[in-house]
């Protein structure tokens, strides 16, 4: 018992911090409680993790292409064991077409027009890792991906303006399997959400030090958002084009983008956290070791 008391005494944080003075008002002032919905958080986070990994894969393969002459998309398809043209059908529901003017209805012809890289990203999103076999894992076993059917209602592509030393980005928006997905071409992929989720808090990605010394957010909002602004002293409106915004001058603090409708009412709140610190970067550098440790534990568990 003494040893457990020692654990209690080793608590590194004796008490939590006080909340920021305006947080309560900020939360309760601009939105209303909603009815309970099925929780999809974990699944969405898993998808996000996969998408971020896909981004790294695409970048890595792009470099490989430059040196070996192998088409990066073909290489990725071989690695993942998926086919970017398989399992695609047209979703006639029109999901998202009313809310996102960037989306054009999907037809057989428009799928042919879709960039190959985007087709691959969609195939990757519609895939899941197969579970490991029962019992000990045989030597040389490799996990593989199961490709799910993809029903596409519409898609569209646009280019952002960039600015402040940040180049423009090609982005795509796709309505697939009852979700709205937002892709950054250069990084391979971004994230997906329901219409309601995007309407409430957008879909966004914030990037630091690319190019060095810059920090920017790229994101998606619905047609309902007529004006978008950074809710922080000294910062103002951010232009929206084809439902997409690209803010290249951000506060060095956590803040919200506020999207207002035609009546000036706030309908979308997009949270952006503080820039990461040097200590946090060091944590990131240690992270691959944690991933390896996690793999070791998985192997050990399978062998027991």
């Amino acid at each position, binding site marked *: 018992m003494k040893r457990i008391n020692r654990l209690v005494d080793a608590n*590194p*944080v004796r008490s*939590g*911090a006080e909340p920021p003075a305006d*947080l309560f008002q900020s*939360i309760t002032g601009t939105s209303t*409680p909603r009815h309970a919905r099925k929780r999809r958080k974990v699944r969405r986070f898993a998808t996000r993790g996969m998408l971020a990994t896909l981004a790294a894969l695409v970048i890595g393969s792009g470099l490989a292409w430059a040196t070996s002459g192998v088409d990066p998309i073909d290489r990725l398809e071989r*690695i993942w064991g998926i086919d970017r043209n398989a399992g695609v059908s047209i979703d006639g529901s029109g999901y998202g077409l009313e809310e996102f003017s960037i989306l054009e209805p999907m037809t057989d012809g428009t799928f042919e027009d879709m960039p190959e890289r985007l087709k691959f990203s969609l195939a990757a999103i519609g895939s899941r890792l197969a579970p490991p076999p029962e019992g000990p894992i045989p030597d040389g076993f490799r996990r593989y991906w199961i490709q799910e059917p993809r029903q596409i209602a519409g898609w569209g592509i646009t280019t952002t303006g960039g600015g402040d030393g940040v180049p423009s980005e090609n982005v795509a928006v796709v309505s697939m399997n009852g979700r709205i997905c937002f892709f950054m071409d250069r990084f391979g992929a971004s994230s997906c959400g329901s219409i309601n989720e995007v309407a409430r808090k957008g879909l966004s990605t914030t990037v630091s030090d690319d190019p060095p010394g810059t920090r920017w957010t790229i994101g998606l909002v619905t047609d309902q958002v007529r004006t978008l602004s950074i809710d922080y002293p000294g910062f103002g409106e951010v232009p929206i084009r084809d439902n997409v915004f690209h803010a290249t001058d951000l506060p060095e603090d956590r803040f919200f983008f506020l999207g207002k409708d035609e009546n000036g009412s706030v309908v979308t709140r997009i949270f952006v956290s503080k820039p990461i610190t040097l200590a946090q970067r060091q944590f990131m550098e240690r992270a691959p070791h944690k991933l390896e440790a996690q793999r070791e534990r998985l192997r050990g568990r399978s062998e027991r």
Partner: protein
Amino acid sequence: MDKDSPEERFERVFAHYGLIEAFARRRGSRDSAAIAAETLSIAWRKLEILDPEHCRPWLLATARNLLLAEYRDFISEPVDPGTIEIPTDEFPDFDINSIDPEIDRALVALDPIDREALLLVAWEELTPKEAAESLGVRPATFRVRLHRARRRMELALATGEPGTDITHRTGVDHP
């Protein structure tokens, strides 16, 4: 403000800001205040399903999911396309740093989910029933997990060989 207005109910939920912020900081969050703010923002939107008098397990489960997203953002950067495996069904292995190095080493020897069971009771001061709810397991399952975690922790401290696999050395099996 009405007695049972959403704002008043939310005030009682909001009072747990410190609990969530400390929980996130203990698990190595890069922005514990943001995790707490986002957790409470979700709580506000889901207020109808929350009991303000008994919301601590839900708040910590939500914060854990947000931490998991933050953690995955970290680990997803540098990967080798030839060897990638994504541990999507694994319990998150958060970066725990106590103020006692020996405790740290003993904690590292535990499975992440056993460690979480122990810490929810020791540091977050949840009751076993609350901790079970936060982890989404039955109270009986949680008690077994907690007992096992305590035993392994004590063994790790007693042997002074932290970081080794206590399970193998003592013959204690995973259920």
